[in-house]
């Protein structure tokens, strides 16, 4: 059993009671909601005649369904307009702070929480979205939950939870030039599999994570769930504290020392014990591209596609389905695979540093005539910052469309969708069948710089060769 880890400390300090079921009642310090998974929760609350117990601990925004071309109301899509109306009504009725378009703080829920300093070390965080694990980058326990659980958090500020085991995932050494946080997280998923993390929280540690910026750590933790781990986190350190200082909801100057003391106290002890430890070498990681229909079906950009006959028997059928859906051939190099669409954005890679990396590739180059390419900033703040730096111009000059903030084609609940069997190079997090809005659509996941390189060449390319 794990002992002395951040997971243990935060879990214990937030435990309200042991429930008769054997579950723990866990206090949730920060609750984030969005338009898609909250309307039914508010309805259930109203049906039971309940109020929001701690309205000052819930924050709302809109991200999943918002159009990224014109955000003028009413939206052209009636269902999206109705959903927008529902969250507006609910936040006003139940007294919840709402970061709407006019606030200047709207954006993907996992981007705006950290950006405003709402996400802080030692918190428990919940949101009706599986990528809530993103917030673990700050040393929080952040859980993706379903709508009935959203209702529980609204009504009680608590969740009934089962404890997880803790796996320490070490990546030591140094990354090669051109290898990004996205490649690190895809590599870990490739090695441990999409089911490897079931029942575990992942504690990411070692030289590579120590050296990462907060935005890079968020990219890694974001995809913990793609490896089956509901929770992923990095212990808070000076990088974390420096990021938080001065942000809107971060503790003010006179509270800073107290906050620091708490934040430092929650980090895993030097002699912490883990249920499992795995070790990787950062120097082994190459830019990674997924070729299949689960995020663990991936290869290095200079590798060939794997032979299903050599796959573990449990994976063989999934490989066959993947090859059929993707219309790719075992043994073929992944480099050179033609793409139709390039998408840069999402809660995985829609932050300012992601756009900067992609813009370095786009600068002075042109998107291939056969590719439709677009960039969707993760938040209004990211968009404003990018425009200040002239990145919008760089992208537009290269032939990328420059859009408004939202989840966009990561899950295609807005008008941004693949058509037919189009194939996308995408900086998002899921390559599931149908994920990007067409049941026959195909997704290849990679870093934002790799997406930009694919957009320019019209095919999967090693970004390091483009930048040479």
């Amino acid at each position, binding site marked *: 059993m794990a002992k002395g880890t951040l997971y243990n400390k935060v879990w214990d*300090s*937030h*435990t*309200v*009671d042991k*429930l*008769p*079921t*054997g*579950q723990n*009642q866990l206090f949730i310090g920060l609750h984030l909601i969005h338009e*898609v*998974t909250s309307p*039914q929760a508010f309805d259930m609350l109203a049906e039971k005649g*309940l109020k929001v*117990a*701690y309205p000052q601990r819930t924050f709302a925004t809109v991200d*999943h*369904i918002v159009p990224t071309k014109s955000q003028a109301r009413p939206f052209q899509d009636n*269902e999206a307009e109705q959903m927008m109306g*529902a969250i507006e009504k609910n936040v006003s009725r139940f007294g919840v702070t709402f970061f709407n378009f006019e606030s200047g703080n709207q954006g993907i829920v996992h981007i705006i929480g950290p950006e405003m300093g709402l996400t802080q070390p*030692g*918190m428990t965080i919940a949101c009706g*979205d*599986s990528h*809530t694990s993103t917030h673990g980058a700050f040393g929080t326990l952040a859980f993706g*939950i*379903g*709508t*009935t*659980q959203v*209702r*529980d958090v609204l*009504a*009680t*500020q*608590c*969740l*009934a939870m089962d404890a997880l085991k803790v796996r320490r995932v070490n990546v030591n050494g140094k990354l090669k030039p051109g290898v990004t946080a996205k490649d690190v997280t895809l590599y870990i998923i490739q090695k441990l599999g999409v*089911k490897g993390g*079931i029942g575990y929280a992942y504690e990411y540690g070692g030289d590579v994570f120590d050296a990462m910026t907060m935005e890079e750590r968020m990219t890694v933790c974001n995809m913990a*769930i*793609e490896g*089956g781990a*509901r929770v992923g986190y990095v212990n808070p350190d000076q990088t974390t504290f420096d990021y938080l200082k001065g942000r809107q909801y971060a503790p003010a100057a006179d509270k800073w020392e*107290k*906050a620091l003391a*708490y934040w430092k106290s929650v980090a895993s002890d030097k002699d912490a014990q883990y249920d499992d430890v795995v070790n990787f070498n950062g120097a082994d990681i190459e830019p990674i591209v997924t070729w299949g229909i*689960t995020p663990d079906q991936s290869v290095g950009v200079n590798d060939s596609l794997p032979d299903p006959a050599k796959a573990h028997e*449990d994976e063989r*059928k*999934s490989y066959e389905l993947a090859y059929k859906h993707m219309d790719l051939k075992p043994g073929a190099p992944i480099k050179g695979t033609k793409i139709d669409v390039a998408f840069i954005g999402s809660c995985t890679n829609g932050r300012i540093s992601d756009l900067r990396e992609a813009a370095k590739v786009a600068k002075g180059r042109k998107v291939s005539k056969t590719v439709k390419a677009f960039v969707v900033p993760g938040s209004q703040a990211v968009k404003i910052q990018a425009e200040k730096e002239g990145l919008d111009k760089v992208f537009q000059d290269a032939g990328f469309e420059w859009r408004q903030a939202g989840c966009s084609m990561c*899950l*295609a609940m807005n008008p941004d969708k693949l058509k037919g069997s189009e194939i996308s190079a995408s900086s998002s997090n*899921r390559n*599931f*069948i*149908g*994920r990007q809005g067409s*049941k026959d659509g195909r997704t290849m996941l990679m870093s934002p710089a790799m997406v930009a390189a694919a957009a320019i060449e019209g095919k999967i390319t090693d970004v390091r060769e483009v930048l040479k």
Partner: protein
Amino acid sequence: MSKINHIEGRAVPVEGNDIDTDRIIPARYLKEITFTNMGKYPFYDERFDSAGKPKGHSFDMPQYQGAHILFVNQNFGCGSSREHAPQSLMRWGIQAIVGESFAEIFAGNCTMLGIPTCTVSKEQAHELQGKVKGNPKTQFVVDLDKKAIFCEGKELMKFDIHESKRNALINGTWDSTSLLLANAGKTAEVAKRLPYVSGF
């Protein structure tokens, strides 16, 4: 709330590992602001072609209509946390799911709806799927008290289920709001103790 001790009925197999919640319910159906219609949509894009013609998915085969128990394989329900996935299965008629393993968030969502997620070995999952394909009329009982699956009065196999989930179901406390609300006083104490809640 009702106590759920056993689920009885015919079964339906859905084969394959890593069936994600996007496949269980495509995101476009999440735009509805109630769960009311979700029973029409489970596995929609796997069941129907672009013209809306059935492709022969088990959920459309006549022999599986009215089934209450779903037999699956590994990591069922991975991906998105959308509760629409178990909602769609439940509203189609599924009351219990038996498989090799389940994604964490999906299994939690199922419990909140009173749907047990029972795990068996790979061989046993294949045996169950084979049995129901061989004779779709077979009646099964998923017995949560005995943690076993019965068939024609005989115990076919034992299954595992997270003990807290089993307790919640058999004691009728799976809809957790009232349990959590009962501790409102203790919740306030914890909130007071946490330095960040009071703003340090």
